[in-house]
């Protein structure tokens, strides 16, 4: 195989990482303006505290950042699949589709 590592996938990944960082930064600053003076208490694990109900909230913005990151991973696998389809390399199309399927299934477990 010729060294198939197209730079454009990397560029898309970098953009995804930066967009998610911007979301996380905006949400984080907003969160600190609301709660910055509260006393931090993360010694005990409390799963109920972590779920966001409204995406137009500081926490919601941070979570949008997280979703952007996860979505770029889906995109990464999809783009690699497409490269293998272009090469008509069906064994690797199947491997990539399998990874993609597990990734998507993992969100519904």
């Amino acid at each position, binding site marked *: 195989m010729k060294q198939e590592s197209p*730079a454009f996938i*990397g560029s898309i990944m970098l953009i995804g*990482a930066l967009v998610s960082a911007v979301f996380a930064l905006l949400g984080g600053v907003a*969160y*600190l303006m609301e709660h910055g003076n509260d006393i931090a208490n993360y010694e005990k694990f409390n799963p109920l505290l972590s779920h966001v109900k409204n995406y137009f909230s500081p926490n919601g913005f941070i979570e949008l950042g*997280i979703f952007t990151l996860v979505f*770029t991973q889906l995109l990464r696998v999809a783009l690699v699949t497409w490269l293998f389809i272009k090469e008509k390399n069906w064994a*690797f199309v199947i491997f990539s589709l*399998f990874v993609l399927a597990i990734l998507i299934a993992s969100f519904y*477990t």
Partner: protein
Amino acid sequence: MTILELSILLLITAYIAGLVGSLTGLGGGMIVIPVLVLLFNIDIHYAMGASLISVIATSSGSSAAYLREGYTNLKVGMFLEVGAVLGAIVGAYLTAYLSVHVISIVFGIVMLFSAFFSLARKNEVSFDQPSHPWAVKLGLEGSYPSSRGIQAYKVQRVPLALGLMTTAGSLSGLLGIGSGAVKVLAMDLAMRLPYKVSTTTSNFLIGITAATSVGIYYKHGYIDPAITFPVLLGVLAGALTGARILSNTRSKNLRIIFSFVIAILAAEMMYKGLVGGGF
């Protein structure tokens, strides 16, 4: 401590973790989790959630530089990733049923192993030995830009590498880390790929593997936005700085110093896991 103070400290810590993690190849999670747990008294589940997200950010952010250089072997990568995603699902599932004590002890062991491997890493590239039959059949062999021009390489022990990758995936899901050390082990020691090929291919895969655990971590409430945002921003910025420095400098001494730090943190994690203080 107020949340503002904690966030600033986390940001600084995460930056250093990301920087050193990328310079040594150990990854940010290996450092950020014990520091959050031991120094800031943060529950290990929150630390794992924040680390998992920062691992994805690091892998995405540094892919651009790595893919441009032309070392990443996508075929080897996607083949091995089949094992890694399956492992990640199992690991992420299991972690909800394990006690904090067990997780801490396993974490300590993985840290010790990673520190040791980071020091002992040798590069015996396979140019002459024929490839494993699976590698030939799947066409996994590749070539990379070396100092003597484009150099073709062979691929050894494919089944062993697949097994190691499945282990790496399950550790990633179990502990919220990238398991870069085990991934590199699969490609370095088992497949005998050139150093830069295994490092960059591993980096390419780490984000995909970690993303597989996010759904399960999210459902269990491990990903707390308030802890995740400073860790995510810090580790990402640190890793991007590290990737810039790495292309110019050798980091052997840093690896030695850092492996000792990791070993001490590992001992403390295991002690905390065994004695149970603070949990």
